[in-house]
């Protein structure tokens, strides 16, 4: 299992990388952490004519505070660096909670936040978390840049709005508002495996303890992360209770996901897992929101 031949470019600046993508975007692939791309190249499932390696771009490896309590993360920031960043929990409790579930330490030492988002694997944790947190992404091209909300970024199975000449360069995550709690849950067959199903949940309470708004993003249940808006809608304006979580779980599991089934999980089993994960995640997210309100 060896990759097919390719031309290799390792630009030393973002500008140089953008120039290369302007010229070769249609036949070139960007190499970030390589932890998804290199395996498929080893299998020759991908045979890009050119790799543009972003690993020399120190300018895309950063974590810095932004405005209004946000954090800005360079696309080439590796998962291990994020895992060791003690402040991450304050800015994005879901990302902080999710990172230990992302593959194994050896993988997290290479894999990057921007790479995982651009790859848009429906089983990956980072896209679901960014959707749940309302992240924004900065996409650059030689002629300019644009900001895209996570909501608009993911388009389907390994599909995003990224144009061939564009590079995702930065991710912005805003600190959750007050009285907000979240919970990240997944079930995998072994530590570090792809999840059979997972959820990133976030709940905001009113000052009287009633649920103001909720967000439930499921992953590894279809061809892209699923924003379960109907289940979340059932929660808004209601007093937290086990019966309420059950109603949301049924809504999400029965109506909002459409699992096709794999050798490891039939559609029915996936629905069962989504129900279990919804109940667990909502109970924990509400508890955390109550603690944050106290």
């Amino acid at each position, binding site marked *: *299992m*060896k*990759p*097919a*031949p*390719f*031309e*290799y470019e*390792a630009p030393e600046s973002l500008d140089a990388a953008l120039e290369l993508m302007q010229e070769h975007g249609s036949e070139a692939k960007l*190499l970030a952490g*390589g*932890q998804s791309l*290199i*395996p498929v*190249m*080893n*299998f020759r499932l991908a045979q890009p004519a050119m*790799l543009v*390696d972003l*690993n020399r771009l120190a300018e895309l490896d950063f974590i810095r505070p932004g405005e209004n309590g946000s954090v800005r993360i360079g696309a080439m920031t590796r998962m*291990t660096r994020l895992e060791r960043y003690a402040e991450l929990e304050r800015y994005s409790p879901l990302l902080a909670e999710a990172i*230990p579930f992302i*593959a*194994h*330490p*050896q*993988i997290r*030492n*290479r894999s990057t936040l921007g790479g995982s988002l651009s790859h848009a694997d429906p089983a990956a944790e980072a896209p679901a978390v960014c959707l749940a947190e309302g992240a924004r992404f900065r996409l650059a091209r030689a002629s300019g840049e644009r900001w895209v909300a996570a909501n608009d970024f993911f388009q389907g199975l390994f599909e995003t709005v990224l144009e061939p000449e564009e590079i995702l360069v930065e991710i912005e995550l805003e600190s959750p508002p007050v009285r907000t709690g979240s919970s990240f849950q997944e079930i995998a067959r*072994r*530590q*570090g495996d792809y999840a059979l199903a997972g959820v990133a949940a976030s709940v905001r309470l009113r000052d009287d303890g009633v649920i103001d708004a909720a967000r439930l993003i499921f992953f590894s249940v279809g061809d892209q992360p699923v924003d379960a808006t109907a289940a979340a809608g059932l929660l808004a304006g209601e007093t937290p209770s086990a019966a309420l979580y059950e109603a949301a779980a049924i809504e999400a599991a029965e109506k909002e996901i459409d699992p096709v089934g794999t050798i490891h999980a039939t559609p029915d089993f996936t629905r069962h897992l989504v129900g279990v994960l919804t109940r667990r995640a909502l109970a924990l997210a509400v508890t955390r929101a109550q603690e944050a309100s106290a």
Partner: protein
Amino acid sequence: MTAPHEVRLTVNGTPRRAETEPRTLLSDFLRHDLGLTGTHVGCEHGVCGACTILLDGEPVRSCLVFAVQADGHEITTVEGLAPGVDDLHVLQEAFWEAHGLQCGFCTPGFLLTLVPFLERHPDPTEHEIRVAISGNLCRCTGYQNIVDAVLLAAEMMRSSAVAGPTVQE
């Protein structure tokens, strides 16, 4: 075939250089171009962990890095662990003592995964060890003796760390 690139890197403290195609995996570069066959190649798609090496001190899978990407970086392979040809690294000693290997194919990957882990976790719990080795497959031991070996190594390292200053005095 694409034009070879020059790769200069430091392997186990020694500067090395070689020319290779961009598609050469770091695992193959170490084995075929540098003759360091202690790095074992199992699945070649990032699942088994046998090819784990240290890249700038952190464990990575050498089958998921191209050799050209290691240009200018520092690599440690299993050949670089022991302090001398007649000695073993403490962790190797503990694997031997606790019977942490049978066929030994996976062992280099386990060792390179665990050396930095023990530096960060000098007194690990069994659970922490099992999470740390979750990316390394072993088909012989059932992992129990590997976990025992890591606990033993941690104990040996802690007692030598305590004994260290006394010897210097």
